[in-house]
């Protein structure tokens, strides 16, 4: 090895080490952010919970933070609205998204599939405020007319908007999972005299189930965290949820009051507590689904 080569090798080693450090730093940074955010939420969310009382806070049915004589800080309406809204969006969005993915993966002619895929990609790029706007001007009046309600700004409208918003990720993740199913499984099924539809639903879908479950998780994550679009179509009233009632979600509760809640007031710190609850919710969902995945893989 001559000198030049040795020098070159040393420089390469040096840059390898440097890059290694950069990667490490980025990894550490990500962890640091998570820890920072968690710590911040816990520290700023706890005081109000302590003052109101955990049970009264979580299970109190009335949210009236600015009442002159008897302010109340119950967030049960928000929790239930978020749970129902997310469940509703998943109940509508997952079947539709799954069937679309099945269509794209197994049935659609290539050209048509390309068109649908492009549309789905565009759908995922639309900002949530635009969903809100369209929901407000098209969907809300439609809901009012169809169900003859005084106002169409309801949980139902929010569920419909959310289901459309979670569609793109459900479609693309499920499609990837379905495409990854080995062709041999499908051939084995067809060779046993199954029809194509039977094969897709009884072999391909189960074989892709973990990917499809991942799609559901993504959908839940997106739906429970969404604020802007649903604030515009759900009426934003702190009611106990009902399909045809105006409602307020955990996210929209924070977003709609933060701007006027007085600094240092109990109202403001209660909003932090709501953020903490939302955060814990998302963590909980992730943990449950992770456990379920693990069980499934081992079982």
């Amino acid at each position, binding site marked *: 090895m001559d000198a030049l080569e040795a020098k070159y090798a040393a420089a390469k080693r040096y840059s390898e080490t440097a890059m290694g450090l950069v990667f490490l730093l980025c990894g550490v940074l990500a962890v640091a952010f998570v820890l920072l955010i968690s710590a911040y939420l816990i520290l700023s969310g706890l005081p109000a919970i302590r003052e109101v009382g955990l049970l009264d806070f979580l299970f109190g049915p009335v949210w009236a933070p600015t009442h002159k004589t008897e302010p109340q800080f119950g967030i049960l309406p928000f929790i239930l609205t978020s749970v129902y809204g997310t469940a509703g969006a998943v109940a509508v969005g997952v079947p539709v998204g799954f069937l679309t993915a099945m269509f794209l993966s197994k049935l659609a002619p290539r050209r048509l599939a390309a068109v649908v895929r492009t549309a789905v990609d565009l759908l995922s790029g639309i900002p949530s405020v635009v969903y809100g706007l369209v929901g407000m001007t098209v969907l809300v009046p439609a809901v009012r007319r169809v169900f003859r309600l005084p106002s169409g700004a309801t949980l139902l409208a929010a569920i419909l908007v959310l289901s459309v918003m979670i569609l793109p990720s459900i479609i693309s993740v499920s499609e990837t999972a379905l495409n990854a199913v080995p062709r041999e499984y499908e*051939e*084995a099924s067809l060779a*046993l*005299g199954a029809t194509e539809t039977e094969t897709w639903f009884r072999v391909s879908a189960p074989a892709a189930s973990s990917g499809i479950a991942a799609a559901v998780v993504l959908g839940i994550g997106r739906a429970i965290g969404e604020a802007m679009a649903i604030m515009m179509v759900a009426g934003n009233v702190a009611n106990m949820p009902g399909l045809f009632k105006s409602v307020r979600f955990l996210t929209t509760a924070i977003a709609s009051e933060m701007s006027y809640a007085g600094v240092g007031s109990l109202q403001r710190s209660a909003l932090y507590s709501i953020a903490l609850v939302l955060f814990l919710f998302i963590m909980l969902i992730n943990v449950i689904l992770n456990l379920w995945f693990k069980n499934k893989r081992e079982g």
Partner: protein
Amino acid sequence: MDILSTRGLDLWYGDNQALKHIDMDIPERQVTALIGPSGCGKSTFLKTLNRMNDLVPAVRVEGLVTYRERDIYAPGTDVTWLRRQVGMVFQKPNPFPMSIYDNIAYGPRIHGVRSKARLDDIVERSLKGAAIWDEVKDRLKKSALSLSGGQQQRLCIARALAVEPDVLLMDEATSALDPISTSKIEDLITELKEHYTIIIVTHNMQQATRISDTCAFFLLGELIEFGQTTQMFSMPRDKRTEDYITGRFG
């Protein structure tokens, strides 16, 4: 009695003709072996018999293929019915990523069997039929993917038997297996021919002589020679057959 027959069977993949005017009569309850060098059309021929070729885009079939005197390419033929009669075992073992039980019960369930007792019975009979019952009877609920390659292949045979086929097609079903598993499956094939018509593709001349009654030699999409295995291996009529079975090419 011939169970499957072809007359003037031509098959094209796009512009590439893979089968050229094949006339063949496959006898019932015997083992028929298809031999010939790679790419000569053995798998293609096999898949015309249960119409798995339909899955290949741009495939074109001409000529006549009959199963028990029925033209299986006639318009209106129920392909699922055909594939139920003419089952298939693939080269690479391909059990579903499900339990052993569910693998076997898959076919019967598709065809409408719901009763647990009947399914239990079918599963047991099929696994016994494929000589794998004793090895798996204590872990029917375990994933089929936990089995060894040889066991997986016998499971696939059991899965094919579970829909009570008439014919079994096996495309190099032992080529991915070790010698012990291979000999188990060869024994199994010899037993199965009492009840089933079996057509195998093999690259192994010894295997063809050991287990087949009738043999077909393919070359470049043509059927060169077809007849009794013992006769073909002792006194081949065609020079090219002789060259192939004595290992002079292929």
